[in-house]
């Protein structure tokens, strides 16, 4: 079959190609003219919606920049809101697979949603491109040839802060995360590289509003640093209250997914100077990144976050792979091979895939700053890991 040339009108070419296939006549004629369908799963309602909105906007920005096409193919992106409820997500993903017959599924902010939907998606041998969630089972024993992550493995941004605390020579650290699996994983990730004393592990309620009790405890413990993981609204609450409690500037604030561009518009000055582990920041100095940040700010009026960058990269990854695979995903072997080569320029700079479908990339400590134009953003403070691989790839049997 002839490879699809980007310059040739694809539909006609594809139609011709399909018509030549034996048995193609049994296909409904409309299927031929149908654009490539991508189901995009994101959290768009509830307190965690800003993360999902950024990820979706990043993805759609890339599609828009590419003229509504990926790999030269016209695409239809069907966005669904998982409401951060696994059972709702599964039902909606089944609709994407069975009713809408999507060719690809992308997105997913939260790991519990990812763990719930990966089964139906991967069992139907549909490719799943994560825009954020990177739970350890998918990186290790449960890895799949149809799964690729355009983000990171969950532990990594926490490991960054552990390594940073170790390098800084901090001796006594307090850890605080919400009481759920990701919180426990976060502490484990931090401790992988941190060898000093953990004075206290504080587990808070998920969605907690008031951190006064915990902050008083931290003040009393007077540690060398605080490491915390408070995604979304919890991060806003904690950051504001941390500043008010007078701890800012006294206790170094090390975090992951707590201080980023989804929360900075709300926390503003209270967050300036706080540190976070990330694989991307708007300040990364590559032409692709500069263009992305500028375009995103122009389009949506806010500074992009890492979720936006990952969404953008996910679209670019699909675009590149489609180009290599001749504009179609039906030859799964070929498309997998194309994806694994990561044929795109990531806004992060270096980006390659490990055997388990997770990226090999650099990780940084970033710091919240107020930019000269008055907007708040994170900026790279220091690079902690170079071309890092996740800790679970060894358990993955894929080659």
């Amino acid at each position: 079959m002839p490879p699809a040339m980007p310059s040739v009108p694809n539909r006609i070419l594809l139609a011709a190609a399909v018509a030549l296939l034996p048995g193609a006549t049994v296909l409904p004629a409309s299927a031929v003219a149908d654009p490539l369908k991508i189901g995009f799963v994101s959290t768009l309602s509830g307190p965690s919606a800003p993360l999902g909105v950024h990820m979706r906007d990043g993805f759609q920005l890339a599609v828009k920049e590419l003229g509504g096409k990926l790999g030269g193919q016209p695409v239809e992106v069907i966005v669904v809101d998982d409401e951060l409820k696994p059972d709702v997500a599964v039902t909606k993903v089944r609709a994407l697979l069975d009713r809408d017959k999507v060719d690809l599924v992308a997105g997913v902010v939260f790991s519990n949603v990812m763990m719930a939907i990966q089964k139906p998606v991967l069992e139907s041998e549909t490719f799943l491109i994560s825009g954020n969630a990177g739970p350890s089972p998918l990186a290790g024993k449960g890895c799949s040839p149809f799964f690729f992550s355009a983000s990171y493995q969950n532990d990594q941004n926490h490991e960054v802060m552990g390594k940073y605390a170790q390098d800084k020579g901090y001796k006594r650290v307090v850890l605080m995360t919400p009481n759920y699996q990701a919180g426990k994983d976060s502490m484990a990730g931090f401790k992988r590289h941190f060898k000093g004393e953990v004075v206290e592990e504080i587990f808070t309620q998920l969605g907690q509003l008031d951190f006064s009790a915990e902050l008083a405890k931290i003040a009393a413990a007077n540690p060398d640093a605080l490491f915390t993981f408070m995604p979304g609204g919890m991060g806003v609450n904690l950051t504001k209250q941390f500043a008010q409690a007078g701890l800012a500037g006294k206790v170094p604030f090390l975090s992951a997914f707590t201080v980023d561009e989804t929360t900075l518009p709300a926390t503003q000055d209270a967050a300036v100077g706080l540190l976070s582990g990330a694989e991307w920041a708007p300040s990364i100095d590559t032409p692709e990144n500069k263009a992305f940040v500028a375009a995103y700010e122009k389009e949506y009026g806010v500074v992009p976050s890492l979720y936006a960058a990952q969404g953008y990269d996910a679209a670019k990854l699909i675009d590149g792979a489609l180009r290599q695979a001749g504009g179609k995903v039906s030859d799964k072997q070929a498309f997998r091979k194309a994806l694994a080569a990561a044929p795109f320029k990531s806004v992060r700079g270096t980006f390659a895939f490990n055997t388990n479908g997770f990226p090999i990339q650099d990780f940084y400590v970033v710091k919240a700053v107020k930019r000269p134009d008055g907007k708040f953003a994170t900026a790279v403070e220091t690079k902690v890991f170079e071309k890092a691989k996740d800790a679970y790839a060894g358990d993955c049997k894929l080659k």
Partner: protein
Amino acid sequence: MTTALFVSQLLNGLQLGVILFLVAAGLTLVFGVMDFINLAHGVQYMLGAYLVAVLTAWTGSFAAGLLLGLVGALVLGFVLEVLVFRHLTRRDHLEQVLGTFGVILIVTELVRILFGSAPLAFPTPAVFAGSVTLLPGLNYPVWRLVILVVGLAVAVLLWYLVNRTRLGMLVRAGSTHPETVSALGVDIDRLFLVVFAFGAMLAGLAGAMAGPLVSVEPTMGDRILIVAFVVVVIGGIGSIKGAFVSALVVGLVDTLGRAFAPDLLKVLVGKSAAAAAGPALSSMLIYLLMAVVLSVRPSGLFGGRSA
């Protein structure tokens, strides 16, 4: 050091308590006077925070923003009452639950369309930023003290209004003997309108007070609503005194529970068991409290009437 920690946790608990009281007060009044379940009360808390945040940014002054915001919350309370709630007052509780749930969806979604899902900036007013030293080793955020003072002032004001004014007498009578009030020739609909709008304003004030502490986003009212209901029910429906006492108790139990329950468990059942059970236990403490109170006193602490 330990004393300082304990005192600061006490203050934290009281401060959470007065915020809960501000939300619960309107809820319990509307509940008591009109036997009306208003799930949308949390939305009014959210609207208060949004109004004050936006108006503060617009006027450049927190005082002006707060004043205008409270007036706005009052007006929105009137509007919602006239548009929806007044048509639900004589209906079955379940219809009220359903109708006000619909209002939550509508208002939350409208706010999302207008302001987006992202949390809004609501900085601490500059005058009240930072913290003061109360005791040696005890630095306490000024804003939290402000909340404490405002909450207690409102409690005193409410006590005066309810116990010393004609309006208050009607409210009290209305919560126990609604037919008597109508028999007195009082327009119960107008009484409800006033009480409702006033309650909405108090919820708005609570939102504005909490704004500098928490993430100001469209669903911020959901969680506080459930806790406010817990407060109202523990205190006894319709009782301002009950709401006040139970708000403080719930605030203290929640805060002290989070602060000390895990450590206490460590001593009692050992470290690993405590690590597993501690956080779950401190999360459910207020619900446990409610279940215990209601099983002993099925109409709450100060409830005269079971609604």
